[in-house]
């Protein structure tokens, strides 16, 4: 079934490609094959999650040195494959509506081909059980997404974003190459089963391997400060692709880290500390930079960094638990982190689709040019609100459930460990609380300025609602946010096989520990259900009270000013200003103020921009240095063909000498 799904995805992609200039046909074939392929592949995935037994395939004959085509759909793979297939399938439905609008101007075959390839790549990454197969899948995924990012390649900014993404992702891949080469040398095989069976890898090598994994996979996941490509690539891609990239593709990085942990044996405590440190920086800085943005999709991209930080916090506590042989911590921490993987996929996918609908309807993603869209696109606004409440981790939605588990694990850790051991947990509690507050600030801003109030510009005034194809996936995802929130104990109980794989505990132990999470979650659900009932009751009460009374309608109270205009509303920059000022030393926002002069000033302008700190102080200087160093070698490349032939001959000669020498 799994392979049937993959075959449908690939076949459909190729067919779409062949449709050539018939863009609408390509659009239909591409989207349909993506939806059907994902749905078919979801069947075995759901089966594995429900039963907890792995399904192995292969090894198939595959003539690649050190490679073997072994795939296995274990509980962990299935847990990651679920959002990959689910979100990709829904995003494809949305994409059919979104891309139709480009049908006149662009060929739609290639983007759908790459979209399907991206889905297959992601799926193969999480089920591959051999180093070479894994890297090949990884590359397929990265390259396919590169071509999707550069869909609108006629724009300079998009090409630039694609380049940043391509370079960043390959820096990460380089680390992964090193990781697998070293692993293969230590274990003598590149099959994961063989590596795991090889047993404990020596301490210092394991440390190096772990660091390589954190850098390599962290680049894809978006750990701060390796996240530079996220805020560039996500806004550039078409919105359904952003939803897939931000919602699920970056999670393959998290999968990589968890998988590597499984291969490396018993972790030392500092791995947990490192992950928590990464989580704190990514989480807090990610949301701070998000707050300073005024492009909707860029803002969402930074929120992905934040949420990856939250996931890292959960994983960090989990690793600490495994390291200290404290199953309670291990289970709660990993459960929180991995549940957040699913949750973030759902609400971030939803928010990106919503942002896409806004851009599609109003032709701009500048938050300050929007406003009042609630009335133009009520359902989009509603689903965006659901996503916003969920991403802030507020009850009764799904974001709260995973954050609650991470809190629970840290409280547990704080109390059960002594002195220094409980410092990471305090960092987790403090930073989660702060992230929660900042995220609420960010999304009251994003939702409030984009959808509420009066339109700030003509773009917003002439906005139109998205079609049914685009709306349906958003409604489904919003329902998932509510569903996971209200069915939290059931969902967490389903994680038992995954937890057994990740923590290495027996399923009996995991079951006992998970019940420590499901019991309070049941109470949480009871409390949130009573909240919903109360809210409903209050609606009725108000309705009864207002029955037959005078209900007036008037202008907003302008505090004595009688001619308020839409431009006087608070903008996203003004809303965020107290916080961005408070953290000015971190954000380093650039401001250009052309202040009004005199009594009847005719011109005044203000512009602010918050460039990425890690790009500005890390990557750019580094690449400038590299550029300078490499330019010293330019004399080699002088354009004369005869010299190039000589280089070739010399290389072959050197290789020959080496070969002969080694042969003796």
């Amino acid at each position: 079934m799994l392979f049937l799904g993959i075959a449908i995805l690939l076949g459909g992609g190729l067919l779409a490609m062949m449709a050539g200039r018939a863009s609408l046909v390509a659009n239909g074939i591409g989207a349909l094959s993506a939806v059907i392929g994902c749905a078919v592949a979801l069947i075995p995935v759901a089966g594995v999650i429900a039963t907890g037994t792995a399904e192995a395939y292969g090894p198939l004959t595959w003539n690649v040195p050190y490679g073997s085509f072994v795939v296995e759909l274990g509980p962990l793979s299935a847990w990651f494959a679920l959002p990959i297939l689910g979100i990709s399938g829904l995003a494809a439905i949305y994409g059919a509506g979104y891309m139709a609008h480009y049908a006149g101007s662009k060929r739609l075959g290639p983007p759908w081909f790459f979209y399907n390839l991206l889905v297959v790549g992601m799926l193969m990454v999480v089920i591959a059980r051999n180093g070479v197969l894994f890297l090949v899948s990884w590359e397929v995924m990265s390259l396919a997404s590169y071509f999707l990012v550069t869909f609108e390649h006629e724009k300079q900014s998009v090409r630039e974003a694609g380049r940043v993404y391509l370079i960043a992702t390959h820096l990460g891949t380089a680390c992964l190459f090193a990781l697998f080469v070293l692993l293969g040398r230590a274990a003598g095989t590149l099959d994961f089963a063989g590596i795991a069976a090889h047993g404990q890898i020596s301490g210092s090598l394991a440390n190096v391997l772990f660091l390589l994994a954190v850098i390599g996979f962290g680049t894809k996941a978006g750990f701060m400060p390796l996240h530079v490509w996220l805020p560039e690539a996500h806004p550039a891609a078409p919105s359904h692709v952003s939803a897939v990239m931000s919602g699920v593709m970056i999670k393959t990085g998290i999968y990589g880290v968890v998988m590597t942990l499984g291969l490396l044996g018993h972790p030392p405590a500092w791995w947990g500390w490192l992950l928590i440190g990464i989580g704190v920086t990514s989480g807090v800085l990610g949301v701070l930079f998000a707050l300073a943005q005024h492009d909707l999709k860029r803002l969402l991209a930074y929120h992905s960094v934040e949420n990856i930080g939250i996931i890292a916090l959960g994983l960090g506590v989990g690793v600490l638990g495994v390291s200290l042989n404290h199953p309670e911590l291990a289970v709660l921490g990993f459960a929180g982190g991995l549940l957040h993987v699913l949750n973030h996929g759902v609400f971030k996918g939803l928010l990106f689709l919503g942002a896409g609908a806004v851009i599609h309807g109003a032709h701009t993603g500048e938050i300050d040019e929007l406003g009042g869209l609630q009335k133009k696109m009520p359902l989009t606004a509603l689903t965006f609100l659901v996503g916003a409440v969920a991403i802030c981790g507020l009850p009764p939605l799904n974001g709260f459930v995973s954050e609650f588990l991470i809190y629970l694990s840290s409280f547990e850790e704080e109390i059960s460990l002594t002195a220094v051991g409980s410092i990471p947990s305090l960092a987790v509690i403090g930073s989660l609380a702060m992230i929660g507050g900042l995220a609420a600030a960010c999304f009251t801003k994003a939702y409030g300025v984009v959808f509420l109030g009066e339109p700030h510009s003509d773009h917003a005034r002439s906005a139109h609602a998205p079609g049914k194809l685009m709306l349906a996936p958003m409604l489904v995802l919003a329902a998932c946010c509510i569903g996971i929130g209200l069915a939290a104990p059931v969902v967490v109980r389903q994680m038992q096989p995954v937890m057994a794989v990740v923590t290495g505990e027996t399923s009996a132990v995991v079951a006992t520990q998970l019940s420590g999470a499901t019991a309070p979650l049941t109470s949480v659900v009871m409390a949130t259900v009573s909240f919903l009932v109360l809210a409903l009751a209050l609606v009725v009460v108000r309705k009864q009270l207002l029955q037959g009374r005078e209900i007036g309608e008037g202008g907003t109270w302008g505090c004595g000013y009688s001619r308020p205009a839409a431009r006087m509303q608070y903008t996203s920059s003004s809303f965020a200003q107290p916080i961005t000022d408070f953290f000015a030393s971190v954000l380093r926002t650039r401001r250009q103020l052309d202040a009004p002069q005199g009594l009847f000033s005719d011109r005044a302008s203000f512009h602010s921009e918050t460039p990425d700190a890690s790009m500005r102080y890390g990557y750019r200087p580094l690449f400038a240095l590299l550029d300078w160093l490499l330019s010293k070698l330019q004399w080699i490349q002088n354009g004369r063909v005869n010299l190039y032939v000589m280089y070739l001959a010399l290389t072959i000669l050197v290789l020959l000498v080496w070969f002969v020498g080694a042969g003796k």
Partner: protein
Amino acid sequence: MSIIPLILTVTLAPLMLGVINRTKAVIGGRQGQPLAQPYYNLWKLLGKGAVYSHTASWVFRAGPIVTLASVLVAAALMPLGSCPSLVSFSGDLVLFAYLLGLGRFFTVTAAMDTGSAFEGMGGSREVFFSTLAEPALLLGLAAVAKKAIGTPLVSLTEIHAHVTASLWAHSGLILVFVAVAFVIVFLAENSRIPVDDPNTHLELTMIHEVMVLDHSGPDFAFILYGAALKLWVLAALIVGMVIPNTGYFIVDLPISLVGMLAVSVMVGVIESVMARLRLLRVSQLLVSATAMTALALVLEYRG
């Protein structure tokens, strides 16, 4: 027995506002409004019609309802001294903090829905200050939980039940630091002086009041009642953290109620003797609250 705190909260919360007002009046040499004035106000507002702005959508109408409902559920999680809360479970303090967060989210979005610059300004300040207050609240609870309970089942009821005379005897300093931090959080979350002035008449300087300028009639009654409940539950948090339990319910409950009265009087006194801080200073005050809880945690590791 566990329903008592909730019943007390729901019935007595507006009285706290009455006590605060009376204290301010006495210190100011005035006679002041009747103690039950907040109840009269609520009754009056519930009997009125409503006016809505052209700009506002359903979000504006949802704001007061979500806020009140979330505070009511939060109130069910809050014990009073050794009297347990209606619902208590491991980690309920997180739900408590996040329910208040949910209420805040909708108050702010409702304010943004009016399209008024003043209300946006209020919302912006509200989210900023709560961002700084939240870590202090959760870290403070973590500090006391570690000292008081020692078992990983952390609930508000458990924490409050373990604040006893002997805990005060051997780690009083920690409790003092946390209590001071909580008082700051309490004042900020409830928009009292020195963070915000509930009686100010200039919209530019308001935080909470300006966000609810456009609400009227029953909506405004919901908001005022919700604010009173929030005042009560956060005061109950401080009282439970400060007043040692005897373990005898009959003794503890009246003592806790006296404690609530004391908190109200304290707020009244603070509002009488202090002016509102400049907005820039408020953030420093809130960071100092977090620093205070950090200090409490440091003390904990020392001994």
